[in-house]
């Protein structure tokens, strides 16, 4: 009987035959299909349920505005104003949550040698980007067909603002989903950090309204800038004086750099 000793230095494993080594795009596509099934099930009811949530948010914020007697700070109707802030916020928040869902998506698939966590992160992120624009279509469609309101001053800026919000959510979520592999508590810490974001990111107010002494603090929040870019793009009578897309982009780069750093430490 012998005890298994330390073997010679490992040699690089021979790659699998080309026909059995899928491209990253192929794996991501398969994961996107599974994510859609996981999220919506096989029934259209599941799809509807998932997309109704932003409408419920709009209704809740509308009632809160009415309850506190707050009027719109911009020359537009209340629902359109609420939508201009909630749409990018929803893109951000849902993407953060989706990053956490990416762990569940591949947990049982990591046993396959061709599937990695990076595939799941990209797949859930892309699904969430698609969802963000479906939410835009539903919420703005309801606003137009039910209430007769429509504003889209600069579609490019509006789309850019949504993309910034989505990327901020993906970057923030990516960091904490990586950290939560070490300790689950990190995900909860990330969620706790996000909690005030609903109130300080310009969903209920505009950046132009924030007093200068407060803006020194609020201005650090990159989501405020992304929402301001979106709002400027959407509303006919609003031009943000504080929106800085460059700052938001720098924050996105920073978030992904930290996320990739934590991933490298954890060895994907």
């Amino acid at each position: 009987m012998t005890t298994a000793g330390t073997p010679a230095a490992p040699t690089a494993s021979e790659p699998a035959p080309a026909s059995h080594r899928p491209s990253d795009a192929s794996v991501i596509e398969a994961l996107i299909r599974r994510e859609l099934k996981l999220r919506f099930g096989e029934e259209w009811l599941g799809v509807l349920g998932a997309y109704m949530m932003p409408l419920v948010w709009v209704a809740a914020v509308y009632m809160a505005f009415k309850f506190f007697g707050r009027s719109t700070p911009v020359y537009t109707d209340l629902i359109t104003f609420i939508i201009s802030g909630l749409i990018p916020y929803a893109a951000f928040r849902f993407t953060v949550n989706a990053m956490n869902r990416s762990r569940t998506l591949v947990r049982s698939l990591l046993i396959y040698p061709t599937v990695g966590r990076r595939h799941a992160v990209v797949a859930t992120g892309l699904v969430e980007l698609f969802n963000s624009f479906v939410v835009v279509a539903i919420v703005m469609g309801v606003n137009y067909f039910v209430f007769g309101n429509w504003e889209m001053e600069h579609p490019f800026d509006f789309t850019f603002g949504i993309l910034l919000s989505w990327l901020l959510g993906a970057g923030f979520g990516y960091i904490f989903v990586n950290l939560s592999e070490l300790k689950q508590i990190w995900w909860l810490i990330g969620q706790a950090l996000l909690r005030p974001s609903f109130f300080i990111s310009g969903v209920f107010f505009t950046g132009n309204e924030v007093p200068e002494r407060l803006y020194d603090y609020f201005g650090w929040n990159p989501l405020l800038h992304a929402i301001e870019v979106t709002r400027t793009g959407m509303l006919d009578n609003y031009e943000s004086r504080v929106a800085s897309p460059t700052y938001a982009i720098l924050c996105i780069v920073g978030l992904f750099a930290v996320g990739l750093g934590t991933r490298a430490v954890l060895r994907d």
Partner: protein
Amino acid sequence: MWGLLDCTHYYYRFGQTIPILKDATLAIEEHEKVAVLAPPGHGKTTIVRLLTGMESPESGRVLRCPDAWPLGYAGGFRPEMTAENNIRSIAKMAGMNADELSAFVHDFSELGDAYYLPLLNYTNRMKARLGFGTCFGIPAKVYIADDKLTGGEPAFREKCTRELEHRLQTSGLLCLTSNPRAVQDVCDRFYVMEDGGFTACDDFEEAKEMLLYLLEEQDSLPLRSDVAAQRIDRDRDDLLFFDLA
């Protein structure tokens, strides 16, 4: 070469830290057929999870085989999806032609029309058929088995055995099991897990004796609740067949 290099790993359960590996090394060549025998509750599934990248060790290195596929694994299926959609999805992840893999699995699993139903309607044996069908449909350099080399009804198990014998002419195998009989004729290298390490044995008989000794030693200790549950689930006569023979 693939396997574990100086790995230490713990299993956490209900606040308890249970050591699975202590600076353990297991080096395997891709063509080898290796069996690791371990008493129930010694972390076979955890080691499979380490080798397949589902978990990372506390320390040490895992040399993952880039073409090692789990044998009969049904955990990757989504119950909301039909078997066909599941297989097509896995085909994309494996870099295979979805039509070809689906046709193979349909034929091999002999599920008939149930192949087009969501897995929510499946029994465990049907899932096992699908798992083995999928596994044999994907050419692998190495198969990793967690306790089971076959599954399903007796006739289907026969079919799996024949297919596995055929596949092992060109592929390697790592099987972690508590049942020595299962690997006696299949593997050519044998290890036994003890004290957080892998002890290499000269032949099957030696590995079997060591496992028997460990099982007897375990029997003399009060059973942990999780081990006791596994014991109840398992056919004890099957587990200790060589003791009674």
